[in-house]
């Protein structure tokens, strides 16, 4: 009965769901800890190091604190939307993870939950859903600062969504596929796409900073001017969900960059540059993927504690006047080069 392919398929899907949830829900709180520790180190401080060895239990303490807080619901908020918004921020990131290949294969199990042909389109479409959560949170809070935060978030995300999509077009032209597994396999044979498309990589990563509301583009939150932006009116677990959502978004963004530009689960030498046939190579692939994602997360944190926030008009100017044309020119240049190489 266990060897029946149909049942095996279901078991694999269950295992993958558990693995993805486990990975995300364990990495995300530790990203918060990493953020606090690294920020402290950059500022010559120590950071939270008291709860558990070197502060390793700090995320648990934080989560407990958030859960035990009073769940405030002001009279003036739009209650249904207000309650819905945090979930809307958190869900898309988990959904995007369904199409990301986090390894090649462990035994007979492929390491991607849904090997969709239009995987990247799905990822882009779903990822932009999280802006709804933020905009709705700002709107439903029915007060000034959250509203401003929500508006900024909507405007910012629309501008950067365009660059995000356009910057990836050259990749699709080169690999000829929207399937993320296929893109990773292309990279195992031809080398990392970052080396072919540095401009696209730069635009994509920068737009992702804007997508994830990370400094230097964290205008929706902007502690100093909007106090905390869209999540001012939130407390307790609802705030926790926003917090978690922000870091889960960051995790997904890192996973996307890893998959698209950094060769996904592969390393450019044997036996890591081909889909695994043995179990330990498969596990190593998962490890490599997680390591690359962590490196990207470090980049996110590092940039946040280096670069000051952009002014709002600078942000818009950068999006529409620099990245948008740059991405278009990049597409044309790559197209011309590809045409030349095909014909000559």
């Amino acid at each position, binding site marked *: 009965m266990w060897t029946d392919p149909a049942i095996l398929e279901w078991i694999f899907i269950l295992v993958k769901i558990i693995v993805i949830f486990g990975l995300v829900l364990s990495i995300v709180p530790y990203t918060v800890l990493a953020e606090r520790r690294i920020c402290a*180190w*950059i500022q*010559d*401080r*120590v950071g939270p190091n008291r709860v558990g060895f070197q502060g390793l239990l700090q995320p648990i303490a934080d989560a407990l604190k958030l859960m035990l807080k009073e769940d405030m619901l002001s009279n003036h908020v739009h209650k249904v939307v207000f309650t819905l918004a945090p979930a809307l921020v958190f869900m898309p990131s988990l959904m995007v993870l369904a199409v990301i290949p986090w390894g090649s294969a462990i035994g007979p199990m492929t390491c991607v939950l849904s090997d969709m042909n239009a995987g990247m389109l799905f990822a882009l479409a779903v990822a932009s859903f999280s802006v709804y959560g933020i905009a709705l949170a700002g709107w439903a809070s029915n007060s000034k600062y959250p509203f401003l935060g929500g508006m900024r978030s909507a405007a910012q995300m629309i501008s950067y969504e365009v660059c995000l999509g356009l910057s990836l077009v050259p990749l699709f032209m080169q690999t000829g596929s929207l399937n993320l597994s296929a893109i990773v396999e292309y990279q195992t044979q031809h080398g990392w796409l970052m080396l072919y498309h540095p401009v696209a990589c730069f635009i994509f990563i920068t737009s992702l900073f804007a997508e994830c509301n990370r400094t230097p583009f964290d205008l929706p939150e902007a502690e100093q001017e909007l106090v905390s932006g869209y999540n001012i009116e939130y407390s307790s677990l609802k705030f926790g969900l926003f917090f978690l959502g922000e870091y889960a978004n960051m995790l997904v963004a890192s996973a996307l960059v890893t998959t698209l530009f950094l060769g996904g689960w592969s390393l450019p030498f044997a036996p890591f540059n081909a889909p695994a046939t043995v179990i330990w190579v498969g596990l190593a692939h998962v490890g490599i993927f997680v390591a690359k994602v962590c490196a990207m997360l470090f980049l996110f944190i590092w*940039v946040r*504690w*280096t*670069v000051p926030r952009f002014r709002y008009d600078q942000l818009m100017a950068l999006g529409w006047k620099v990245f948008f044309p740059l991405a278009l020119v990049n597409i044309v240049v790559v197209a011309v080069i590809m045409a030349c190489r095909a014909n000559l």
Partner: protein
Amino acid sequence: MIVERPKLTIWDRLYMPQILKGMWITLKHIPMKRFTRQYPEETPPLPKRYRGVPTLVRDPEQRVKCVACQLCEFVCPPRAITVIPGFRAETGPDAKVEKEPSDFIIDMARCIYCGLCEEACPEEAIFLKKDYAMASYTREQMKLHKEKLLELGGIHEDRICKWKKK
């Protein structure tokens, strides 16, 4: 004063080189020395004349030096000190000594650590020690009574033993 805006070259206006430079600076700071003091384990070095908690002291022969003259109570700017005078034992080492406080209360919630009590004391019976972490959970606990003050103060080793020669 008019500050001239610096003329930015193309290199500066590209913005990226400067960001990379900044990122290199922040990266360099990661392994650097930390300036945090791990407080309860590492206490700060206190200056020599640091004024901490006011305490009562005993002389080398275990007598309470305070004679309940109440000068400290009068001089105390925030009125943190309350002295309740009492009498000493008729026999033993205390026999020739004047009065003694039956209770001596310093309200640490009011004390401003000015040290005027120490200056005013004619018997050199009250001293400000270096302890500073005197927090409590209730206002009542913040009131230090005679036993506690004597315990904090300990014995003051002075050469002039006034009551020995009387």
